[in-house]
């Protein structure tokens, strides 16, 4: 029987599969037993109440979706009194995803979660700040480091930095988060994108830009996960277009310790459970006793192999 457990800093998860923030809600408990998940990452909330963006909020693209949700939030009290208790019915560690407008806001909100029952806090520093033409904390290494540092000063809980993919050199941001004290990286949030209806000549989401998610984004985020894993010594959690066990394995080979599934759960709500079954079967077929052995196990082409394949 394959050991599916993985360690993210001081936390041991029963398996490496968890939902990406914003892709699981109470309704998923109607579909399968959430206790099967390695962790439950909840939807990003802010301390204040927010309604989010105007609809249309979603456009269907090829093998992907364009979402422009904003961060609708019912605030901290709702999160502590309703959301956490709901998920505590399941035997699965809860990870809170938070957002704030300022470094101090991230710290203050982290402090409020210290005794909430969550096992870690994911800092959503990467959700495109559409009001700034897509610029966000996560696009700036200094802001990234400051946010993580403020959260670590405010709480004893582990802090995961969810990076923005909308950067030139993700390794720089990864190191900034590590320097700030991050216990893990989540690579990455949605890529800033746009689509226009050629009949109406209007943007396909009301807010003009949104985040593209789904299988189409996987190869770019795969590269970023590899670059992050090369750049830091903290665990990297892969997140981008994971649809099945093959995708999860690919991310782990690239250096991820765990993976988050997002958009595929919208299409196939049982996908995380199926992924776990298929991941187990893969490990058994390949004689892999511990799934954690996959992390960073990619093998480069050897010089001999390149020669055989026709390299010069």
């Amino acid at each position: 029987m394959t050991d599916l457990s993985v360690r993210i800093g001081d936390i041991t998860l029963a398996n490496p599969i968890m939902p990406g923030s914003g892709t699981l809600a109470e309704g998923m408990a109607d579909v399968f037993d959430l206790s099967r998940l390695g962790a439950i990452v909840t939807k990003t909330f802010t301390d204040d109440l927010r309604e989010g963006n105007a609809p249309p909020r979603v456009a269907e693209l090829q093998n992907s979706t364009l979402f422009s949700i904003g961060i609708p939030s019912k605030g901290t009290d709702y999160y502590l009194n309703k959301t956490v208790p709901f998920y505590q019915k399941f035997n699965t560690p809860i990870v809170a995803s938070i957002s704030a407008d300022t470094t101090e806001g991230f710290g203050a909100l982290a402090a409020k979660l210290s005794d909430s029952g969550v096992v870690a806090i994911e800092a959503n520093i990467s959700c495109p700040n559409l009001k700034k033409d897509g610029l966000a904390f996560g696009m700036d290494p200094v802001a990234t480091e400051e946010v993580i540092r403020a959260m670590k000063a405010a709480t004893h809980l582990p802090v995961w930095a969810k990076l923005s993919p909308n950067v030139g050199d993700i390794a720089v941001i990864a190191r900034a988060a590590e320097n700030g004290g991050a216990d893990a990286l989540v690579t990455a949030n949605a890529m800033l994108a746009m689509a226009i209806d050629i009949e109406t000549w209007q943007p396909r989401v009301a807010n003009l830009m949104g985040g593209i998610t789904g299988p189409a984004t996987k190869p770019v985020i795969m590269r970023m996960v590899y670059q992050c894993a090369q750049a830091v010594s903290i665990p990297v959690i892969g997140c981008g277009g994971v649809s099945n066990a093959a995708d999860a394995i690919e991310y782990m080979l690239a250096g991820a310790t765990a993976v988050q599934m997002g958009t595929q759960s919208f299409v196939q709500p049982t996908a995380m459970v199926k992924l776990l079954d298929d991941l187990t079967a893969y490990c058994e077929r390949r004689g892999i006793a511990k799934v954690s052995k996959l992390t960073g196990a990619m093998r480069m082409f050897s010089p001999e192999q390149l020669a055989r394949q026709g390299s010069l």
Partner: protein
Amino acid sequence: MSLCAVKPDEAGAGDSFPVAENLCTIVSNDWVNEEYRLLIVDAPAIALAAKAGQFFHLMCPPDGESGNFLRRPMSIHRIDREQGQLHFLYKVQGSGTRGLATLGQGDTLDALGPVGQGFTLPRGTQHVVMIGRGVGLATLAPLAQEAVAAGAKVTAILSARMASLLMAEDALRSDGAEVVIVTDDVGNSDTTSLEALLRRVHADRPIDFVATCGSKRLTRLLQDFSTEFGIAGQVALEQRMGCALGMCFACVMPFRNTAADGTRTVGYRRVCWDGPVFNLEETVL
């Protein structure tokens, strides 16, 4: 598996869940008139536990270059528990329904559901009036069936451009509804005529619940009418969706909220999870 017995709050306690990716075998998928198709599938027990106003989120086959990546929400036209079948009535108008139209007998339809909050008929309802136009008619039929089963009289007002485009008429009649037909052709489908009709029906036999689907114009009419006479009412809404399980927050629309102190505000709700059936007075059009 015990189905309806599992409430969302109890999920996780066992391994029976009220929502599933139901793999349904297509019985037939034929044109019923020049615009609409009727899709009948053999459905498993979880799917047949659906209630009026709930919906399924359908995996649609690709349509040419459009891969139909996301599922499409589809209201239930008929829940036939005796035959173990579900009926869907749909207009072929986008890439999703074009993909759906390619399914033939024996093919498999992946139908996630049942999902959403259906109609809630107040206890003791005596006379339900439902009014629908276009594909909205399809959505109201199961409510007629439930209302009749609960001992209520049902008056179904069906509106269409012309009589040949009417749907659900036979189903409604066979379920025991009294059917009134209005058409643009005849000239009795305008708001003024319909309002007068509603007043006559109400005067004849007091209405204590109204329901509608598929038309902003008709919804406004019913909002005004139900407010004037203090009648409870609900509307089934439609919105572009992502997940249909309340997760992605894509399908929001604005609704009127009333706080404990009576303060009224407007806020977004998820059509898939908080609806698709909403109380008429809360609906912003």
